[in-house]
């Protein structure tokens, strides 16, 4: 089976800054200027208190493996089984991701393993943040 292409995101006015940041190799989160809640996914207001006073900031890119599945059905991003994971970032928010530079097996993917962000360019506009074992 030929390798299929990932479905790529279509940025909206509210998320464009995130994808611009990823293209530049930065993982951008947002923080509320009123209640200081750090949040994701992007939107121009705080989901905790509703304030429109929010700032974009660069995340450390560090986190840990919260949970995952290893998908074995024929799927868009790989011919072989691959993990679809959720990483919990140091700053608090969680995001879905794939784990790269790592075997895609339960043994190689213990929960709570430390992860760090890496970026994979898809085309001129879209670069996806992925995660790899910390120090890999």
């Amino acid at each position, binding site marked *: 089976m030929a390798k299929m292409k*990932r*479905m*790529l*995101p*279509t*940025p*909206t006015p509210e*998320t464009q800054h995130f994808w611009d940041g990823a293209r530049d190799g930065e993982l951008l989160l947002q923080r509320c200027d009123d209640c200081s809640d750090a949040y*994701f*996914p992007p939107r121009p207001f705080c989901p905790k208190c509703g304030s429109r006073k929010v700032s974009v900031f660069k995340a450390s890119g560090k986190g840990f493996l*919260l*949970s*995952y*599945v*290893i*998908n*074995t*059905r024929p*799927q*868009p*991003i*790989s011919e072989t*089984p*691959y993990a*679809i*994971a*959720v990483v919990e970032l140091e700053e608090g928010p*969680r*995001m*879905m*991701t*794939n784990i790269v530079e790592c075997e895609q097996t*339960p043994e190689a993917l213990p*929960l709570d393993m430390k992860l760090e962000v890496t970026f994979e360019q898809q085309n001129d506009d879209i670069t*996806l943040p992925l995660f790899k074992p910390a120090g890999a």
Partner: protein
Amino acid sequence: MKQNSVAVVGAAETTDMGKVPGMSQIMLHADAALNALEDAGLKPSDIDGIATAGEWPTSIAHYLGITPTWVDGTLVGGCSFMMHVRHAAAAINEGLCETVLITHGESGRSRIGSSPYPMDTVSLAGQFEIPYGVMGPPSMFTIPVLRYLKEYDLTVEDLAMVSVIQREWAAKNPRSSFKDPLTVDDVLGSSMIAWPFTKLMCCLVTDGGGAIILTSAERAKDFPQKPVYVLGTGESVETPMISQMEDFCSSRAFKVSGAKAFEEAGISHDDVDHLMIYDAFAHLPLYGLEDLGFCKPGEAAAFIRERNTAPGGKLPMNTNGGGLSYMHSGMYGMYALQESIRQMRGTAAAQIEGAKISVSHGVGGMFGASGTVIFTNEA
């Protein structure tokens, strides 16, 4: 809502289920609706309220020849029908309509006249989940589970046991898709879908439908079937993104919906004789038992292993065989409601003798939404 103010007076599933290549999606709605109307001794012209999901209410009203004064098209996935019951009860109590028809139909297996699956890259899920290779429930709904197993020191055998015990119930139901007994090894040895989930931990994909007719408890006494009263209801939503649910070991929507339903019904867990928890995948009864308050966090797996929910147990659960073994057309909530209604009428294939209160708990859009209906057969 007011306890026991509204009752089910008609309920039926499609004439055939499983593989129904001779019917499109809208005809599955209509087939179930006509069966429910016959069950209630009504004609389409007697219906003045309509609720449905998966098809537009407009399409169903036109197809069946109904002129409604109340319409509900709430679509939040498989528990939409629990919410329809709740909304219908409020509407009937408010006098917006007298007799409500709720329909479901889905050509999940044959895919005849079914709604196309949208390829979304714009929504938040489209931008921040779809690119990572998720495609539908088997690779999404399952993501929180490894965290749940680790948190409570459980194993894949605990997941497999859910499928094994539900198959025991399915064996008692002539309409079940699968009836042969299963072992934990059978479940673990079936083909891998998305680690840690094997095929036998995932629901079926079938064709079918169901319909329910509700009216005021006062009018219900004049109908041919034994009335099944709506004692309490709940609903909530959390997030359309599995990665963003607050707690991977618990569903906020389950907790809010369940607590509301128990509060409205004014009952305790000991009062419950029969339970349906929508089991799209083997972990849902575990989350459901805990989030509804039947078990403490982390104790549902032992509760199931010790046969409390199995035939002969003190809390019979998913007595039709569930989405894992009975049928699952896509939005299974309707079939959970149908089994609760049959148990309250005393007509279920695996009837629980003397059952007076049944809880029917649904999930929708992964862990995105939840609806709960508590029925009783005592006015």
